């Protein structure tokens, strides 16, 4: 079984073909960074326009790279939520048009499930050993510019959210801090680059702790503390210690993520902990998971951590094997939760 996957939930227009073993036959990503950079953040209307302009070319390129025509695929999977509604609609309506005209099944995919499924993708060019069915139950930290969720997955399509962010997503926090410092957009990579040479213990930012000992996250307080701290510095101090300050802030963000994830792993004893989403590319975050103990920690290849069509195609493949189909009036849902997409298998 080979499924075409389409992903347009945020600012990347992506399409891919994946088979039922998780083997990635093609993965095409058309980045919009250049269009959003001058606004230091994603402008939804621009994202929707770019998706509309490039989606057919992305789909065609994905099919071409897989050596296929659309009639050769066994289904079309599409992200139907969560995400920016205008962006989601372009992918959903395109997928519906493609599925209708080709007579192929349409398979709805939750973007967050897609991120988890990235852990199972097999890349012909990567030595990494992806997860298999033997790795359940697993704990997934989904962390990106739009999401921060810790999810327990006991088997395929079974999701229990242990905790999510109460305010900003972790990646958003890094973006906003970078923006305040005038470092540019997107903030994650630039923070990592500048912070790489800094001393993460230079300044200690406050951590948020919730009394019930749960797994919820909060980053808005940390963001405010970061900005207030920068405001308190002279421009000379800031200039002299920029890498240290960035490293300290980055360290506080990823420390929060890793700390809660490892505590959940300790308490719930999953077989595997997988870290997915754009922030999973962060080196300091990866280093923080070095002390994981018995649990296997997996990071998918970088290109499958950020938004991509392959993860949607594979999630679609798993669902298609169970007979999941979308109706012709499938709608996008910007606030879809991962638990909303749990299946009673």
């Amino acid at each position: 079984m080979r499924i075409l996957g389409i992903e347009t939930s945020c600012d990347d227009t992506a399409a891919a073909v994946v088979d039922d073993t998780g083997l990635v036959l093609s993965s095409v990503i058309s980045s919009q960074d250049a269009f959003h950079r001058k606004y230091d953040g994603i402008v939804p209307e621009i994202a929707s326009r770019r998706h509309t302009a490039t989606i057919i070319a992305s789909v065609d390129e994905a099919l071409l790279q897989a050596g296929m025509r659309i009639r050769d695929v066994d289904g079309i999977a599409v992200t139907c939520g969560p995400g920016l509604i205008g962006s989601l609609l372009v992918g959903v309506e395109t997928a519906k048009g493609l599925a209708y005209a080709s007579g192929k099944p349409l398979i709805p995919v939750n973007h967050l499930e897609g991120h988890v499924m990235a852990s199972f993708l097999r890349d012909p060019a990567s030595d990494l050993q992806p997860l298999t069915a033997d790795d359940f139950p697993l704990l997934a930290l989904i962390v990106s510019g739009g999401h921060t969720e810790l999810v327990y997955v006991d088997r395929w399509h079974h999701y229990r959210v242990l905790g999510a962010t109460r305010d900003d997503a972790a990646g958003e926090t890094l973006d906003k801090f970078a923006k305040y410092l005038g470092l540019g957009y997107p903030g994650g990579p630039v923070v990592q680059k500048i912070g790489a040479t800094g001393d993460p213990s230079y300044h200690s930012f406050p951590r948020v702790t919730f009394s019930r000992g749960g797994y919820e996250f909060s980053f808005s307080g940390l963001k405010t503390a970061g900005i207030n701290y920068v405001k308190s510095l002279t421009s000379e101090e800031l200039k002299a210690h920029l890498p240290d300050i960035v490293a300290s802030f980055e360290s506080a963000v990823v420390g929060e993520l890793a700390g809660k994830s490892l505590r959940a792993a300790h308490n719930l004893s999953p077989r595997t902990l997988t870290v997915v989403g754009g922030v999973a590319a962060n080196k300091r975050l990866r280093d923080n998971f070095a002390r994981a103990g018995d649990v296997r920690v997996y990071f998918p290849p970088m290109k499958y951590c950020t938004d991509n069509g392959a993860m949607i195609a594979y999630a679609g493949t798993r669902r298609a094997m169970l007979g999941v189909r979308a109706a012709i009036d499938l709608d996008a849902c910007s606030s879809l939760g991962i638990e909303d997409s749990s299946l009673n298998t």
Partner: protein
Amino acid sequence: MLRQAFLLINTATVSGVVGLARGDEVLAQASLQLATASNTVVAAVDQVLVEAGCTLDEVAGIVLVKGPGTFTGSRVGASIAKAIAYVVPCSLLSVTTLEAVAWSGFLTSTTQATDGPVWALLDARRHEFYVQEFSVRNGAIVSQADAVCLGPGAFDTVRDVGGLATCAFSPAAVPENQRPHERENVVWSFDVYPSCAGILAASAGARSEDPFTLEPLYLRSTEELFDHPKVAL
């Protein structure tokens, strides 16, 4: 099988329509309430094909009303039209919402002018209107000028010339001091949305589009909209 049918799609206005035509005849149509049910367009395409007893194999092309209009609505129609044209494959033609409105209003006008100015007006929000001047020549609507986006002065522009003014909005959307009054040189026609007959008639002058590159016609650039974005920190 002969490919002779054309699929007509307008989702750029709040009242949308999907239709199937062969030659000059509209074989089937379905209206769309896009404000509440933008997810039903593909189902409507299926409905008109079934009603007309046609399959996509008989579709020679798609005529898309590509905007201006609501941004999301325009994208929904464009996404679907591009996808279907890519898969079938069939030709993809576009007309503007203003062309489709002018034709739709002209075809149903009771005071049908045999020649003279015909205006198309669309609500562009922010107290602005998209306006385009056409004229009737030999029974056909011909563009006289490019579409422009104007403030309430749009109505003065129309009154300066006179003619038939077809408006894709209700009279309530007209500014108080611009409301139609008796004994003026303009015949105002409100709530005119692209009809299948109007889209089909406009398609005689349609542009040929590439499904790989077609974008809706927005008339408002993102620079104009967002060069002073309110991105909260």
